C-alpha cells in the first residue's frame, strides 16, 4: 500500500510539496507515483535559478516503463536540486518523501499551496485511478 503523509500537500499530477521552516518548499513525487512508474532510471532536474510557474514543467522522471513530466506544484524560483538523483535515480523508489526529493523552490506566493490536495483527498484520487 502506498503512503500518504498527512503533513504534505499533493498535486493531481502526483507531486508532493512540503513547507520547510525557512519558508522554502520542497517538491518530490508521491509514493503512489513512484509505484506506478516502476524502477526510476533517470531524472532530469530543473536548473537552479529557473523561475517555474504553478503546473508548469520543472523536470522529467523516466522509469523502466515511461517518461513523465514533473510539474512545479506552485510558482517560484528553483533554489536547489537533489543531485543524488543523477547517480542514484532509484532513490525516488526507495524514499519518495525523504531522500528522493526533486527540488526546492522559493515560493512566489505560499497561498498557492491552498489549492493543492491534502493527504485524504489525494489518496481518494489515487484509489479512484486504480479502479
Amino acid at each position, binding site marked *: 500500500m502506498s503512503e500518504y503523509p498527512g503533513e504534505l500537500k499533493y498535486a493531481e499530477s502526483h507531486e508532493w510539496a512540503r513547507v520547510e521552516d525557512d519558508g522554502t518548499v520542497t517538491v518530490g513525487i508521491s509514493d503512489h507515483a513512484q509505484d506506478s512508474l516502476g*524502477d526510476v532510471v533517470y531524472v532530469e532536474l530543473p536548473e537552479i535559478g529557473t523561475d517555474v510557474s504553478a503546473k508548469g514543467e520543472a523536470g522529467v522522471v523516466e522509469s523502466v516503463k515511461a517518461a513523465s513530466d514533473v510539474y512545479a506544484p506552485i510558482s517560484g524560483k528553483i533554489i536547489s536540486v537533489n543531485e543524488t538523483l543523477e547517480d542514484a535515480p532509484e532513490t525516488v523508489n526507495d524514499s519518495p518523501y525523504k531522500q528522493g526529493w526533486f527540488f526546492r523552490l522559493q515560493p512566489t506566493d505560499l497561498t498557492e499551496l491552498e489549492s493543492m490536495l491534502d493527504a485524504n483527498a489525494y489518496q481518494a484520487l489515487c484509489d479512484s485511478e486504480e479502479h
Partner: protein
Amino acid sequence: MGLRTPIYELHLSAGAKMVDFGGWDMPIHYGSQIEEHHLVRNSVGVCDVSHMTVIDLSGPDSKGYLRYLLANDVEKLQSAGKALYSAMLDQTGGVLDDLIVYLTQDGYRIVVNCATREKDLAWMNDKIQAFDCKLTERPDLAILAIQGPESIQVLKDVLRKDATEGASRVAFIDQLKPFVGGFCGDWFLARTGYTGEKGIEAIVPADDAKALWQGLASAGVRAIGLGARDTLRLEAGMNLYGSDMDETVTPLESNMEITLSMDAERDFIGKQKLTEQMQAGVERQLVGLVLNQRGVLRAHYPVYSNDEWVGEITSGAFSPTLQHSIALARIKTGANDLQVEIRGKRLAVSKVNPPFARNGKQVYKQSS
C-alpha cells in the same frame, strides 16, 4: 478480465503487478523490474510465458509444409529435438510472425507469439490445404522459462526432489545441448530462451507447471516479469514481434538475414519478394543504438542523420547491465552520425551491431 495462465494465482501471491498483454493478464514485475533483470543475468529467475501459443504439427507432409511456410529451412533440423528460429512471411515478404520450431519424434512443435495467435492459425490452416498434415493447438500446456547462469543447476536440484520422475528428467537435461529440446515423458524441455542467458524452457501440462513453479519458489528462485524479459531480450539483441518487425517490413529490413535460407531448390512464401529486394538492395535496416549519456531511448523516437530524418526507434530501454540506454532502430541504410530526438533535444547516439550484452557483459562493437 483477460485470459489467465495456470500460474495466475501464484503471480498474485508473489506480489505481481498484472497488466494486459495480448488479451492475457500477465505479470509485468513483482516489485522491481531491474532487480529481476539482474537476477537472470547473474543467477537465475523463472518467467511464466504460458501466454505463448504452442502448436503441434503431424502427418507425412509436415516437413514439406514447413519448408513452404517458413523463411528458414526445417531441412536443417537433422535430429529430433533440434530447434530452428524462423520468420513466417506473407507473399510480399512481410513478417507475419517469428517463431521457434522443434523437430520431434512425431512431427514438429511450433511456438508462436500470443498477440498473433489468431492471425497465425488462420494463415497456417489456409496454407496447409495442399499438404497431408495437421495442426493441433495445445492450450492445455503451460511454458516456464527458467533462465540465468545458475538456471540448469537449480532446476536439476528442484527436479531431483521428485522421487518418481526426477532422476529421468535430470538425466534428460544433462544430455541437452544448447538450442535443443525434446520430450521427457509428457514434458517438453528445451535449452532455449529469450534472454541471452543459459536456460531451459519447459512446456508442460498445466498442473505440472504449477508444481514446478512452486518447487522453484521453495528453492529460492524468484519470479521474473515480462518487463525484465523485455530488457533482457533487448540487451541480447533479439527482435520483438510487433515492435521491431511486422507485416510492413521484410526480414532483410529487420536484421534477420541470418534466418533466411535462400537455397535455389526450395520455394517458400515470400521468397520471390526477398530475392527481388536482395537484388535491388534494402532501403532500410534495423540497427542497434547506444546512448552514451544520461537519458532513455524509447520506441518511436525519431532518428536523424545530421538534419535529415532517417527513421525511428523500434524498441528502446535503459539497459540495467550496461547502465545506459540502448535501442533498436529502423533507419535509412548506411546512415551515420546519428542523433535521437528526445523531448525536442537531439542527442548523439552510436550505431552498433546487436547484441548489446550477453552473459552479464557488454558485447557490442561499433558498426561501420
